[in-house]
């Protein structure tokens, strides 16, 4: 492991930063001698060594998208486009899910 594969979470903004960082590259916070939460990365999976409880996420200079509890510009209503109603025309003049392509007939094998 190297200093860039061992990550800790910044005491200021809570983002993951290299274990060797003395100052957070994202928010500029000085890292204390005892990080609030440090994790050791393995080559793939992870083995976590943790201290302290869950940490909140705070705003930072990183440029985070708006947080959920701070509201987002894209509210649910705005993105509820109704596209799910745009299906294929049915024989009865209504709409229905479009035909299967490449699949098998209903009930085949099941």
């Amino acid at each position: 492991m190297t200093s860039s594969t061992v990550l800790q979470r910044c005491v200021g903004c809570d983002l993951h930063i290299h274990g060797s960082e003395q100052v957070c590259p994202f928010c500029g916070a000085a890292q204390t001698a005892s990080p609030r939460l440090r994790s050791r990365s393995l080559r793939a999976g992870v083995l976590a060594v943790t201290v302290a409880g869950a940490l909140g996420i705070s705003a930072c200079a990183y440029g985070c998208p708006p947080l959920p509890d701070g509201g987002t510009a894209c509210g649910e209503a705005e993105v509820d486009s109704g596209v799910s109603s745009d299906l294929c025309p049915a024989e009865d003049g209504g709409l229905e899910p479009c035909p299967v392509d490449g699949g098998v007939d209903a009930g085949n094998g099941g």
Partner: protein
Amino acid sequence: MGAEPTARLGAPRTAREADVTHPHPLYCVWELTLACDLGCKHCGSRAGKARPEELTTAQALEVVAQLHEVGVRDVVLIGGEAYLREDWPIIARALAERGITVNMTTGARNLHPERIQQAVDAGLSSISISLDGLERTHDALRGSPGAWKAAVKAAGDVARTRLQLSVNTQLNRLSLPELPDLARLLVELGARAWQVQLTVAMGRAADRPELLLQPYELLELFPLLVRIQDETLLPNEIRLFPANNIGYFGPYEARLRAGGAEGRHWSGCPAGQWALGIEADGTLKGCPSLPTRAYAGGNLKTERLTELLTRSPQLRVLRERTRADLWGFCAGCYYADVCKGGCSWTAHSLLGRPGNNPYCIHRATQLSQRGLRERVSKVERAPGQPFDHGRFELIEEPIPADAQSPTCVQPLDAETMKKVLRKS
């Protein structure tokens, strides 16, 4: 409701000290058959008919023994539709009898109570049912009227057994607006876990690029997932598991990765190292989703798993990736040494090789701070084989002055949608 504690979710896949000392695959996703009773518009394997030379029962049981031999602790049975193989309970029981955790992922169109009882009897731990939205969206994406009703019925039936009910959902332009309502449905159904994964430009999804979210739209997706987690899932003890292709770091990593398990973070593509994928004809890959042509690392009908793990270059190239193998934005990323370019499947399916993955919240955020965003545009079609892909161009461009803030996901208009879903 399933009685199993949520705390054990993912436990068999967690690397222990001994696993690190002697690395070996911890989990395997096994396509038992390519036969399927659905015709999903985004299906990466273009499932429908069984493969020509699928494993016999005897061959499958030999694979079970070999998975146990190399230390696999968790197997997910998939298809096609795994339950369309008549001998699936025999294979599942053989795995369970060796102490391997057995799960099934299913579209559940014909997951009748009798089959659920077979799963209980065979020793399965959980069943994950695919729900890609509310009824009309799900049925349209799954290519089958009645698919949603059948899946919801089966989910309720599973939840009333000792099996743990999980749900998995494709994230794309159709399903995204319905995620909050879908989360509320999960509560009603008694689900204990929810895995969400980005629809990737593979197989039939490569034929329908209009379905794909654009990389910059992760700036909307992540806050939405956290909001759903906080408002609906956590209060009802449902754990959210973003898949390995939802990346990476940024302000939401600690809350979302590995179900929000404390101390977890993304640490690179597990393919070929901790994970394996097996196709129904015995083809071995480092991950079930990887393109077959580029990543088939041998066949278990004729070669032993232990040998393939050692000598297959198609597996080795994945687990030995370093920063030096990355390219594009990922090569210069702050997290490069840990992340290693994120999901190999996503990057390869889009750009023809791994190591540069635009579907990354850290990347999208860094670019947006510079007034930039990335989008993908299809330039080459997929040939039409299982687990195939086309080629996409990655375009970096200034964020349009009239773009909504941060970048609201734009729906498809009705005409485009009809064309997308009708494509064959």
